[in-house]
């Protein structure tokens, strides 16, 4: 094997662009392994571990870009490095007008280039993100802070300052927003309409907006708040101005507030605030219980699916018809029976692998009453040894220095195969997320991994059930129907929502034992 390196001094490129470059170089003929990374000590350790660090790479500084290629011949290595040089010479990786684009070096310069810029979308590495956000706020612009790994202290300082200036600070760790019909971050192409959302949860916002779209309604505005906004420490600092703005917005007739469980004092303050509004509001706080003293125009629901349904019924003035599945329960039960028939008696575990944190949370909340303890990284403290697992692969421990699983599914693909090798795995439970900013072909990425997982199980004399939901709309860039079809062809049982997929998983592994609970409305 030949190892060759080029080092571009003072050459910065974002982590996703570098990941794509690494992947494309690795696919070239004769290339065994390739990696493009900034020369930080952490990255150099990774390169060393991968056998990709030579003297040249070692000499690089944190401000330099290292491109390392291991190939079967000098020619193959040379070709790969030529390709890398070509890609790096282009102003951006791809995209319209790239060659003509003159890029400012600072935020201030950008505000001069784009007068009237009213939103700054920040996705730099976490350790620099707060300072960039503060710059934008001081320049009088709203901020969508996509970056995570920002401290709680900085979050409070940023939001306090933003409120004083009458500005929105959406984040940190805010993956999604929809402003004036424009999807920002990871949003889906949903129709414009009359329901407004404020969400401390990116995939929660996505799921609710997609379900609202499939019910034939639309979104006026969707404000992201960052995952911690309704925690006791942050105290709803951005939820409050978000509510005020949606209440004042003539285009919004119904509000939906979405979050993972909120701290009780924060919830109480919110309810107090809503007493002074009149717009119908759905509080969709996962797994929460309705607080006391809810005003008449406010509804409380514990799942995302019910959040969407309640918003639509409030808008239309029709009574809600909650059901565990979109099809009659007996039909769902028969489907579950057919799936369970493929499993051996030892295969009783649900293994949830989620790209969306709130979807993982919703699944956990639905599965646990039916199946008992579930091991999960969503909880702090000791994870119980349990036959069931639900993992949020977008959590910090999986994403420091790596692209989010909605952009690159490599970690999930590996875990799929790993879970298939476990003889107690009965059902693999997945979320497939479409929309702007997400992977261009999630089904294309997943299907080979699912096939590989099935092959591994088959080698152990086992079959597997794969259950999931595709979160998206027909207008999303990936092609919703095509994604669904390819997953179904690969044997994935798809349900119309994440909540229904979780219920189906419970029905399958329990061999129908939770049917009575579902029938009785215990969901």
């Amino acid at each position, binding site marked *: 094997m030949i190892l060759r390196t080029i080092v571009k001094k003072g050459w910065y490129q974002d982590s996703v662009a570098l990941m794509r470059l690494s992947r494309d170089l690795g696919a070239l003929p004769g290339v065994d392994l390739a990696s493009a990374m*900034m020369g930080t000590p952490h990255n150099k350790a990774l390169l060393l571990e991968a056998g990709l660090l030579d003297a040249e790479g070692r000499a690089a500084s944190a401000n330099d870009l290292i491109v390392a290629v291991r190939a079967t011949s000098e020619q193959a290595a040379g070709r790969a490095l030529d390709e890398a040089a070509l890609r790096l010479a282009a102003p951006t990786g791809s995209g319209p*007008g790239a060659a003509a684009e003159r*890029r400012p070096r*600072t935020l201030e310069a950008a505000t001069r280039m784009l007068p009237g*810029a009213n*939103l700054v979308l920040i996705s730099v*590495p976490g350790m620099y993100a707060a300072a960039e956000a503060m710059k934008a706020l001081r320049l009088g612009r709203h901020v969508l802070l996509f970056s995570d790994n920002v401290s709680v202290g*900085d979050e409070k300082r940023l939001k306090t300052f933003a409120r004083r200036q009458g500005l929105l600070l959406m984040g940190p760790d805010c993956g999604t927003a929809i*402003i004036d019909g*424009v999807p920002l971050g990871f949003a889906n192409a949903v129709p414009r309409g009359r329901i407004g959302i404020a969400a401390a949860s990116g995939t929660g916002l996505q799921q609710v907006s997609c379900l609202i779209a499939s019910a034939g309604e639309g979104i006026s505005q969707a404000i992201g708040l960052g995952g911690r906004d309704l925690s006791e420490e942050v105290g709803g600092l951005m939820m409050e101005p978000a509510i005020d703005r949606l209440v004042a917005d003539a285009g919004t007739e119904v509000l939906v507030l979405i979050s993972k469980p909120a701290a009780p004092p924060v919830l109480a303050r919110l309810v107090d605030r809503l007493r002074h509004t009149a717009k119908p509001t759905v509080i969709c706080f996962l797994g929460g219980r309705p607080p006391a003293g809810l005003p008449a125009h406010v509804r409380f629901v514990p799942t995302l699916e019910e959040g969407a349904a309640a918003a639509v019924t409030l808008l239309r003035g029709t009574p809600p018809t909650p059901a565990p599945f979109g099809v009659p329960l007996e039909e769902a039960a028969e489907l579950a029976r057919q799936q369970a028939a493929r499993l051996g008696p030892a295969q009783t575990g649900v293994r949830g692998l989620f790209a969306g944190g709130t979807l993982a949370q919703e699944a956990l909340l639905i599965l646990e009453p039916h199946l008992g303890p579930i091991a999960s990284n969503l909880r702090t403290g000791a994870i119980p040894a349990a036959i069931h697992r639900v993992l949020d692969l977008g959590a910090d421990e999986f994403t420091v220095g790596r692209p989010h699983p909605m952009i690159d599914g490599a970690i999930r693909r590996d875990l799929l195969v790993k879970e298939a090798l476990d003889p107690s795995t009965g059902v693999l439970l997945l979320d497939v997320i479409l929309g702007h900013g997400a992977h261009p072909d999630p089904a294309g990425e997943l299907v080979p991994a699912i096939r590989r997982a099935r092959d591994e199980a088959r080698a152990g004399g086992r079959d597997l059930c794969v259950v999931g939901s595709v979160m998206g709309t027909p207008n999303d860039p990936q092609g919703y129907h095509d994604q669904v079809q390819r997953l179904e062809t690969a044997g994935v049982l798809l349900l119309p929502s994440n909540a229904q997929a979780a219920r189906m998983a419970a029905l399958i592994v329990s061999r129908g034992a939770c049917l009575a609970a579902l029938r009785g409305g215990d969901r």
Partner: protein
Amino acid sequence: MTTPQQPFLGGELRVITVGLDLFWQELTRLGVPCVHVDWRPPAGGDPKMAAILAKLAGLGDGPDAAE
């Protein structure tokens, strides 16, 4: 039924992106006025210097951090 469509942020949405290029690409594809900052880590990527700069901006969790 028509929906009143007032701009939510007080004017037409015009975005500056800092960080991942893919967000600039997506917005440009959608026809949203968008400029991407050619961002580099401050202080040549030195984390100590970056922390000092953050403190000067009133951030960071040390004892001198602004409230």
